[in-house]
């Protein structure tokens, strides 16, 4: 997985995050569950991290499985703080 830049999906509830984890786990793309970066204060605390190259597939999976998400962000790692851009 790329370490410098990656995408994350946040959720309004931990249950939605856990459901999304199992859905993404059964797909062919590389994802993992991580704590929501400090720079994003909202949402439940768990996020799904993915490679930005897989953005299209991620969107497909979200709509196909009707996943209840809060937002999608691009994270650019900094030395102390990360830079975060909201994508969706």
């Amino acid at each position, binding site marked *: 997985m790329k370490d410098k830049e990656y995408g994350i999906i946040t959720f309004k509830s*931990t249950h939605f*995050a*856990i459901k999304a*984890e199992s859905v993404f786990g059964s797909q062919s793309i590389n994802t*993992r*569950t*991580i*704590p929501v970066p400090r720079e994003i204060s909202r949402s439940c*605390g*768990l996020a799904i991290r993915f490679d930005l190259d897989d953005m299209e597939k991620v969107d497909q999976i979200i709509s196909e499985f009707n996943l209840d998400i809060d937002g999608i962000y691009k994270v650019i790692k900094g030395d102390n703080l990360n830079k975060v851009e909201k994508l969706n």
Partner: protein
Amino acid sequence: MKKIEVDARGQACPKPVIMTKKELDNIEEGIIITIVDNEVAKNNVSKLANSLGFEYKVDEGENEYLITIIKGKGEVKEEEKAKGAVSGDKVVVFSSNTMGKGSEELGKVLIKSFIYTLTETSPYPATLIFYNGGVHLTCEGSPVLEDLKKLEDEGVEIISCGTCLDYFNIKDKLQVGQISNMYTIYDKMANAGNIINIG
């Protein structure tokens, strides 16, 4: 320079380390020569010197090892180390493959989240200890192997309880770190400045 000899021959596992540490703490600078009669003790005393950032050398004699540690000269290294990737005396203990009680499903997610957080936060702990159900985390099929391997590459020591691996019959499934026994586990805990318990 002051020279102190520590004769730790015939002493059981953590004792040579404790004796050496005590003498090192007592002096501002000087040379400590610890004599031990087995390889495990030699390794453990060497590791102690290394973790404190002191210069040391090992001489092998007949049925004995002499570890010469120089305190004072190596202290620059210690400062450097403090700024580096690994924090000298922080130990994290995992007694289960889940985090907290209440929901196993949630606990499994939380522990992944916790270990990921360890990789994102420096300085890293010096040692991670896994025992009882915690050993599942260092074995095949664990969802945190990638993170643990990353931590190991950064110099974090990873220890799994051998008794526990054996109990679960997964000794051959270990994927990261070393197998160790209760003496080492106690030794690491006893010498830790800061222990974080997760389970």
